[in-house]
């Protein structure tokens, strides 16, 4: 039974996702002891590579998506099922900072597909869960997906392709803005469709996905390659004034929403 991690990295004009993927792959190797396969395209892959992935799968990027800060090549995640060379795969966003072996637990869960349905934000303890819209479902998160090569998992990824291709239609039905494609929303809909419009509790990773969001900046506490201790600085806005607050964290995985900060963290 082979196990490994799968990363998608398509460089945009603003961000080098390949560099992010290399940093994340090294941490996956170190903390999870898993091989990493990269899905990328010829434009993102540098001529000289300093890191040896287990596999590199060349696949064309769908460049038809954009968000507030520019072009965003996040489409095509549904190809993970077909492109993963492993029997059991952890599909990760490249901006997920692995600091522990926690993700290995997802292999032990009695399910063939799971993702996060609950999140927490560092420095925002009481934020409500995100929903597709007030008339729709709680959002699932495509940041971490663990799947096995089963018919049901394949069905979910097939449905993800379908929801991606008909995103505007689903936006109209569920009342969300569909001008920017989001894998999280596509996945939320795909898992429900593949499960007969139900939401099996087994499909959810039984702990919260930890986000680092707006007004929050993370600093490494030391410069070692596999540092696991960070200081998190937060701008607390109160009556037009900023109060700086901080906490320290260690041995904790987190998802960086602010790509610039992620790039700073992984820079040598």
């Amino acid at each position: 039974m082979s196990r490994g991690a799968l990363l998608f990295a398509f460089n945009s004009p603003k961000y080098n996702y390949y560099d992010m993927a290399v940093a994340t792959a090294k941490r996956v190797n170190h903390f999870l002891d898993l091989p990493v396969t990269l899905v990328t395209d010829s434009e993102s892959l540098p001529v000289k590579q300093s890191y040896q992935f287990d596999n590199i799968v060349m696949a064309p990027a769908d460049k038809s998506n954009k968000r507030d800060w520019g072009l965003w090549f996040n489409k095509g995640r549904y190809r993970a099922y077909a492109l993963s060379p492993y029997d059991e795969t952890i599909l990760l966003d490249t901006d997920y900072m692995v600091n522990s072996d926690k993700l290995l637990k997802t292999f032990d869960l009695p399910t063939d597909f799971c993702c996060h349905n609950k999140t927490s934000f560092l420095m925002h303890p009481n934020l409500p869960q995100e929903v597709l819209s007030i008339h729709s479902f709680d959002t699932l998160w495509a940041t971490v997906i663990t799947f096995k090569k089963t018919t049901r998992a394949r069905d979910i990824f097939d449905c993800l392709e379908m929801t991606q291709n008909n995103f505007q239609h689903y936006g109209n039905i569920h009342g969300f803005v569909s001008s920017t494609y989001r894998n999280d929303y596509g996945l939320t809909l795909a898992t429900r469709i593949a499960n007969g419009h139900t939401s099996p509790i087994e499909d959810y990773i039984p702990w919260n996905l930890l986000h680092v969001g707006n007004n929050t900046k993370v600093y490494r506490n030391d410069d070692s390659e596999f540092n696991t201790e960070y200081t998190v600085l937060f701008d607390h806005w109160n009556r037009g004034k900023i109060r700086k607050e901080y906490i320290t964290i260690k041995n904790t995985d987190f998802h960086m929403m602010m790509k610039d900060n992620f790039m700073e963290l992984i820079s040598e």
Partner: protein
Amino acid sequence: MDTKTILDEAKARFNHNSAKSYLKDKYDSKFIIADQNGLWRANPEIINFLNYSSDEYVILIDNFDNPVKVDRNILLIKLSNTYRSVMEEWYNEWKELESKR
């Protein structure tokens, strides 16, 4: 610039509530284990139940709301060990945090 200098220059204050919440999130997940085809959360309630039962096998509802027949002793040992080690880790990090007051 090291983080201490950054914090000094920003005149940042340690936020205990956020730190407490982060610790709860972090350690909550560590109580969860998969065993004997079920998913379990190590807590005093289930540990006490397993401890006071005398049957070799018991049927319990797991975290996914499925009834699972388990070898009582094996699960008891795993959950007790998990609970003890995670609580100790949590306590130590909490004490470290408290010292920042």
